């Protein structure tokens, strides 16, 4: 059986229903472990206790970018293969990615005030993440504006692929320009620059947030498939009545 056959909406629902419950359980366990690790993590020698904001801010940033990456792959599925689950995935991922990007921006701002002396600066990293958030809002608005799902999917897919340019800009902004934001400290060609006593809680929290992201994505995709079923029944009723 081809992968495409496995990815039909009815089969997806059969797999998604138990998967959401299991993933939800794993997410709760991962957060319990991650938060206990975060509480026990020592203060940073420069940043003091505010380093604990990193356990929220960094996963938020990673998942904000992951959300757009998922949407970009789904956009290819919509435009190239016209797969029914591709636009369902893209539509479901947008609000989740937007929420994590917002979490990244707000927690970053709350971390910046005590460390930099300001909530916000228009430097390359902060501005490119704000642009990502605005792109998310644009895609969500597009989905809500165009009523016909397949037309909305194509328009959103084009905007998504154009917006994907922002992902490498976010990642490399700290290398390409002088910014107030610190450089990469986990994903580097050489070893991470963070001490293991802080790196391990960070990675556990990142796993917990990623599990949450996947659980929410599957649940939102299930909702979108049900919404389309409701829509098709209504259209059928309207056509018979007409």
């Amino acid at each position: 059986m081809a992968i495409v056959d496995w990815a039909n909406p009815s089969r997806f629902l059969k797999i998604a229903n138990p998967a959401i419950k299991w993933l939800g359980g794993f997410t709760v366990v991962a957060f319990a472990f991650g938060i206990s690790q975060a509480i026990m993590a020592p203060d940073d020698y420069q940043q003091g206790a505010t380093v604990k904001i990193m356990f929220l801010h960094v996963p938020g940033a990673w998942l904000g970018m992951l959300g757009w990456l998922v949407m970009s792959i789904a956009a290819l599925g919509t435009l190239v293969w016209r797969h029914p689950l591709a636009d369902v995935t893209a539509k479901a991922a947008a609000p989740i990615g937007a929420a994590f990007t917002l979490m990244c921006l707000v927690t970053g701002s709350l971390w910046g005030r005590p460390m930099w002396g300001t909530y916000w600066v228009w430097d390359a990293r902060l501005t490119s993440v704000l642009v990502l958030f605005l792109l998310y809002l644009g895609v969500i608005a597009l989905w809500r504006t165009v009523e016909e799902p397949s037309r909305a999917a194509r328009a959103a897919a084009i905007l998504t692929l154009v917006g994907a340019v922002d992902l490498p800009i976010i990642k490399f902004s700290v290398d390409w320009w002088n910014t107030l934001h610190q450089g990469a400290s986990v994903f580097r060609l050489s070893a991470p620059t963070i001490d293991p006593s802080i790196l391990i809680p960070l990675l556990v929290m990142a796993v917990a947030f990623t599990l949450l992201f996947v659980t929410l994505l599957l649940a939102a995709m299930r909702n979108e498939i049900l919404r389309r079923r409701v829509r098709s029944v209504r259209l059928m009723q309207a056509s018979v009545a007409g």
Partner: protein
Amino acid sequence: MEGANHLSFILAAYAVAIAVVAALVAWVTLDYRAQSAKLAEFEKRGIARGAAGRALMKEAEEEV
């Protein structure tokens, strides 16, 4: 003392994260209930999707 000065920023960051996660969980849960309720209502009224649904609707119309 520095830790105590910055405690409000740390607590505010965690409060924001909890609010974002709670909003996302509430959104998917309430949306699932709403869509399931609509489909259950159609099912209760004997309305199915696809060809079977169209046939049922036609029959109902003819009876009226």
